[in-house]
């Protein structure tokens, strides 16, 4: 048989798959490996989806997404971040940020175009760039700077092929957020080198110290930024597959072309549930954030007691402790912790080379499980004798 596309070759087959499959098939594991809220969607939002189906909303919508939803998104962005997006032509409703990432790369990149990705990184960025024939260029960061890139770190990686920079703050996997000042410095760089910024702000509501800065709210950045956001994390709606992209007309129009031929539209029930989330979801969101915040502190304190160094994560729902003290690699640490203590964590090297020596622990799990997991990690460290 003829070979499948060479484009697939550099995409890691994910050797980690086997480990994950093992976790998935083992009962009674305490898993800190989750990448989504442990809450179910708030009932008032679920009810809006149910009602939509019962009332016969079971068809396609406008390719752009329901105008009602686009208007609500526009209002929310203006209200929260002071950014102004026209619901007619500057907002596209997608099946999650995931779809938006894919179609955005396809409309933005020509073969060989370079896109800068900050590592440790969310796992989808590099593959999406490659699927679109682009070249990911990695900027590694360090725990000593809370895994935040400096302008210099980024600048040395810019070439005349660089087209865009991906920013994802609050960050998966590190929990880092960027202060407004730090983002402003990056904005100047972006201007200087005429780059686009792909700003994945899916965790924007989940911040604990300091407010989220929307990248397109920075001076001159709106036309250069493609803002991606959604409802998966803020409203515990990962399974609804609903998100959106905002940007200048040219880009959003182009994304809409790909979207209309590949996805057609996001599920209508999910769009109507998202409307409810934007209209009345503030309180249920805040409740979840308060709860995450308590669990965050509980986990950080527990990791410290277990002897693992961890910078204080300020957003999303992940901690990214160093496991260097164990003397083990991230993969071996995760494997042994699972074998010996039935606690699942994600090895940090999955998120980029500079993630080696770290593991990702999600605190989107119950406080009881956090306490138990931390006790077991502590035992594990003690048994290692370090």
């Amino acid at each position, binding site marked *: 048989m003829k070979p499948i596309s060479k484009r697939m070759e550099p995409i890691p087959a994910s050797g980690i798959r086997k480990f994950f499959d093992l976790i998935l098939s083992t009962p009674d594991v305490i898993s800190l*490996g989750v990448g989504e809220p442990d809450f*179910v969607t708030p009932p008032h939002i679920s009810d809006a989806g149910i009602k939509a189906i019962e009332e016969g909303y079971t068809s396609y919508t406008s390719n752009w997404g329901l105008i009602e939803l686009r208007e609500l998104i526009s209002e929310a962005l203006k209200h929260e971040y002071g950014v102004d997006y026209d619901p007619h032509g500057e907002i596209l409703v997608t099946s999650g940020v995931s779809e938006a990432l894919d179609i955005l790369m396809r409309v933005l990149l020509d073969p060989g175009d370079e896109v800068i990705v900050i590592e440790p990184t969310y796992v989808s960025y590099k593959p999406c760039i490659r699927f679109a024939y682009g070249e990911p260029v990695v900027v590694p960061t360090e725990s000593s700077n809370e895994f935040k890139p400096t302008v210099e770190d980024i600048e040395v990686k810019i070439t005349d092929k660089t087209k865009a920079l991906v920013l994802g703050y609050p960050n998966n996997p590190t929990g880092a957020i960027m202060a407004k000042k730090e983002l402003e410095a990056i904005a100047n760089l972006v201007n200087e080198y005429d780059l686009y910024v792909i700003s994945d702000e899916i965790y924007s509501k989940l911040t604990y110290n300091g407010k989220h800065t929307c990248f397109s709210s920075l001076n001159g950045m709106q036309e250069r930024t493609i803002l991606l956001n959604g409802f998966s994390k803020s409203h515990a709606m990962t399974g609804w597959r609903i998100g959106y992209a905002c940007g200048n007309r040219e880009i959003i129009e182009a994304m809409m072309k790909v979207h209309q031929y590949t996805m057609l539209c996001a599920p209508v029930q999910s769009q109507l549930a998202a409307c409810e989330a934007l209209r009345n979801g503030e309180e249920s969101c805040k409740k979840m954030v308060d709860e995450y915040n308590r669990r965050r502190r509980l986990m950080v304190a527990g990791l410290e007691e277990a002897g693992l160094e961890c910078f204080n994560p300020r957003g999303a729902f992940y901690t990214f402790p160093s496991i260097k003290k164990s003397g083990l690699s991230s993969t071996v640490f995760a494997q042994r912790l699972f074998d010996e203590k039935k606690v699942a964590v994600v090895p940090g090297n999955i998120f980029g080379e500079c993630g080696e020596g770290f593991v990702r622990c999600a605190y989107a799990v119950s406080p009881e499980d956090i306490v138990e997991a931390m006790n077991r990690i502590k035992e594990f460290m003690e048994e290692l004798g370090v």
Partner: protein
Amino acid sequence: MTFIMDVLEILEKNARTPTDEIAKMVGRSVEEVEDLIKQLEEERVIHKYKTMIDWEKVDREYVYALIEININLSEGEGYDGVAKRIAKFPEVRSVRLVSGAYDLSVVVREKTLKDVAYFVADRIATIEAVQRTVTHFSLKMYKEDGEIVYQRDEGGRLAVSL
């Protein structure tokens, strides 16, 4: 204020959360948390710590009944007097003054249906000011005090996702 609210919310969910865990969750010292809890107990913001028990699992059956009570104010005792009188019976789990077609909403727990019937006949209906009672026996409990008590599906979340 958020310190107080945080501590109360944690304790409302699980009254047995150890103080050091609470301290970690709210980012305060154990002493600060202990002092606050003591103060909240003294001020009766925290009324009491109680346990939700599934008595059926240890073969003790209880019958719950919701009793609607109408009160005749001309008897002079008033809502308050009747409510307090009813509240004193140990069989009575809760007493609320409510708006609408009746005045007091009372939950009674007894060992048998008959016990409930006797209790209503002998203890409640005999109060002068009680004009009328309607008794509803509880058939199945789904949620109590904010806690879902039926077996729930887990929702199929994956143990790992990136």
